[in-house]
């Protein structure tokens, strides 16, 4: 069964550094998402992306964050200047439709640790 893959599985970075998290969505999917989960807290929506532009974003997704689909397969999340509070699990997801019933397929996540 096709999967969403994320790399790396764990990223350690120093505060103030830029980090790029990478995702390869399922090949025939058109809608892409990033979520994050701070340890012990809820999984939170960050951003959705379709047709090479952001469809929706949450309050968390401020100017420090950006997303890009640099080629036909990758979908990236960039954090320009990481803060300690950016430490979390980051999940990429994709779906073939934005209809409410269309399930999101998630990757295994990237654990980001900011020191």
């Amino acid at each position, binding site marked *: 069964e096709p*999967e969403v893959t994320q790399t790396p599985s764990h990223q350690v970075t120093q505060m103030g550094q830029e980090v790029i998290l990478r995702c390869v969505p399922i090949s025939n999917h058109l*809608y892409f*998402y990033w*979520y994050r989960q701070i340890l012990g*807290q*809820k*999984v*939170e*929506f960050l951003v*959705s992306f379709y047709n090479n532009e952001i*469809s*929706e974003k*949450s309050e968390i997704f401020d100017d420090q964050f950006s997303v890009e689909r640099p080629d036909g397969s990758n979908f990236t999340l960039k954090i320009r200047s990481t803060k300690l509070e950016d430490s979390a*699990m980051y*999940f990429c*997801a994709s779906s073939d439709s*934005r*209809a*409410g*019933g269309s*399930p*999101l*397929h*998630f*990757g*295994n*996540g990237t654990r980001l640790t900011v020191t």
Partner: protein
Amino acid sequence: AQTVTQSQPEMSVQEAETVTLSCTYDTSESDYYLFWYKQPPSRQMILVIRQEAYKQQNATENRFSVNFQKAAKSFSLKISDSQLGDAAMYFCAFRNYGGSQGNLIFGKGTKLSVKP
């Protein structure tokens, strides 16, 4: 704003027994979808079951079934004949019916342990 609440941080069940995980939500919408996702130690979030709010019939997927009470805004997950592989974090999630909101809203999760 919609919210999803899972009041049980941890649950435990004996292998082959039945367990029910609770979820309540708050919304002013009448059409929406509800989901249960499973997150095993491998960390991948796997869709377990989905319920359309406009359907009165409770969804069922093999050993997994839901008790959807729309008026009470309750959406519990029942796992029958529990297996060791069912041990995981379980997340309840809400999503609007199309429209302007495409994102999922998750609860905090319930950690399920299965005892042999």
